[in-house]
């Protein structure tokens, strides 16, 4: 009987009930959309970082720190056999040195990255370097990213003076030729980075066979003289940023929840106020106050269930469509995220289930809290519509 009364009362509310259901449904959709987009963003950002820089981790020369460029030159080591013998698809040897460019008579400190041309572990737009001899000629071929090119006012075909120091400390300078401006998704290997052939950089710095690190597909165990930096360490800054994003999303989630709860709470308050006489009548007919509370709470449950249905009806087509078109984030090229493409949401069933359950539980609780006072109502005042003023 409780269900029957609640059901009829719920539909009697008409537009008010529908608007409540709509707010809750839209909040569910917004919540799933937000979380799934964030999942997609995180997945693509980490994947891009792995594909362009991190691989499965780095075996690094001990003490090498990308944030201390003055020490790079001295922290290089010959590649040990265990790494050197890996297939080109499983490793990428990288030598990092400091240099200075002089575009338009300005000094532009850069990171020189030499990478083996046969490697296929990392995905980088360096095809333009492959056709050159393994010894640099009068001009050294180089590739820069779009961001670097814009900052240094460089374009394909430009030559610019590069100065560097070799292993013995001697300073050398030569023209480099920008053979290509590559579309590098990951800004931290674009901004301030000049890409060279590994054999050229080794030759220029007199560091034959040496590397700063070797990126590998997977951890191979300890390697004598090298220290292994796993994905978590190499992506710690990004992961911290993504964790912060999660926190921010929780704040948004909280705001959405407050909106849903307020809407349901408000409707219930109005319901009780408008239906005092009905409550008084039910009491006079002998219905226990607790049962009246159940009826009103059931109305809230009905609202939550309909919200779920509406969320499915509106949300599923939207999510399917959005999964096809994605979300264009090319504007992030100026940001520090390793992502500059279309993001596709990543729907996690467990996360959706938990989120929807929480929304439903909160909206039911919001429907229950205001009707608890029914148990304390004076039936004689309720019958006259004066129990709640």
């Amino acid at each position: 009987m409780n269900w029957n009364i609640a059901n009829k009362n719920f539909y009697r509310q008409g537009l008010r009930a529908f608007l409540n259901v709509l707010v809750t449904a839209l909040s569910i959709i917004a919540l799933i959309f937000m979380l799934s987009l964030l999942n997609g963003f995180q997945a693509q950002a980490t994947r891009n970082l792995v594909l362009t820089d991190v691989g499965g981790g780095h075996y690094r020369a001990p003490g090498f720190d990308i944030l201390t460029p003055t020490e790079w030159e001295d922290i290089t080591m010959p590649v040990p056999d265990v790494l050197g013998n890996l297939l080109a698809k499983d490793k990428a040897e990288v030598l990092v040195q400091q240099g200075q460019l002089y575009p338009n008579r300005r000094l532009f400190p850069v990171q020189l990255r030499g990478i083996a041309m046969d490697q296929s572990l990392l995905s980088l737009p360096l095809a333009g370097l492959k056709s050159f001899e393994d010894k640099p000629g009068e001009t050294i071929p180089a590739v820069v990213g779009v961001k670097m090119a814009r900052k240094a006012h460089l374009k394909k075909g430009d030559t610019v003076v590069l100065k560097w120091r070799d292993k013995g400390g001697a300073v050398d300078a030569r023209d480099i030729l920008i053979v290509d401006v590559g579309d590098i998704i990951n800004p931290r290997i674009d901004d301030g980075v000049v890409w060279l052939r590994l054999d050229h950089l080794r030759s220029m710095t007199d560091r034959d066979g040496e590397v700063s690190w070797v990126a590998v597909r997977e951890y191979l165990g300890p390697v004598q003289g090298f220290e292994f930096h796993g994905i978590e360490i190499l992506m710690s800054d990004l992961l911290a940023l993504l964790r912060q994003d999660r926190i921010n999303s929780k704040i948004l989630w909280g705001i959405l929840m407050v909106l849903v709860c307020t809407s349901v709470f408000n409707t219930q308050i109005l319901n009780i106020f408008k239906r005092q006489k009905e409550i008084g009548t039910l009491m006079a007919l002998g219905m226990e106050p607790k049962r009246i509370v159940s009826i009103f709470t059931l109305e809230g449950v009905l609202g939550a269930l309909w919200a779920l249905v509406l969320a499915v009806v509106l949300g599923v087509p939207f999510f399917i469509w959005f999964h096809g078109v994605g979300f264009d984030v090319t504007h992030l090229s100026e940001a520090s995220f390793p992502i500059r493409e279309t993001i596709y949401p990543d729907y996690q069933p467990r996360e959706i289930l938990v989120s929807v359950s929480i929304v439903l539980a909160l909206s039911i609780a919001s429907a229950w809290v205001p009707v608890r006072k029914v148990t304390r109502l004076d039936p004689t005042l309720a019958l006259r519509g004066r129990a709640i003023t």
Partner: protein
Amino acid sequence: MSETLITLERVSKVYQVGEENFTALNGVSLEVGKGAFMSFVGPSGSGKTTLLNLIGGLDRPTSGSVLFQGANLENMSREQLAAYRRDNIGFIFQTYNLLPVYSVYENVLFPLILNGLKESQVRERVENMVVKVGLKDQINKKPAQLSGGQCQRVAIARALVKDPLLILADEPTANLDSENSYQVLELMRELNHEYKAAVIFSTHDEKVTRYIRREVRLEDGKVSWDKHRNGSEIET
């Protein structure tokens, strides 16, 4: 007098209105027998509705006792009072107080369902009651589709269908025109005769007083006289 159904012993009810106390009932004592057809009359604020509420277990007296077949309502919990109303009392209100989402049939059925009966068990009983109050053709209509007189008939059917010992009717004709008032009163007299349920009106409608067998007049929360149609009269 017939077997006693209700006994009021020096019942007082004091309401707090702001910082002042308002005495709605002041030491009222009386007895109501089974099958009574009576009314509390008196001007507004004389305590008629308060007395009905106390008898109906909707309110508790400030002092004194209300006994139903010897059981003191004062000793009952809220749940027990709800059960007392559910099992024994039928209410008829001035504003009908029908459940707006329910049809005539469902409104009349409602008290029986509250009493734990299944619809299949009582369908015929409900339909008969609806026929008895003259609403056979309106059985599936909602209260909003009925006239005031028809609504009050539904309320009467709802009050009677569970075969209560007592019906409390608070100004049942106040919102009705003369013709409908007479029809409702006639119906209630017939049903009182047929079902033997005691009926207590609270009213200041003179039409009602023509029908009842006993009239208790209240003034300033006290019984000023208690008049029986058989000629006996107790003036207090």
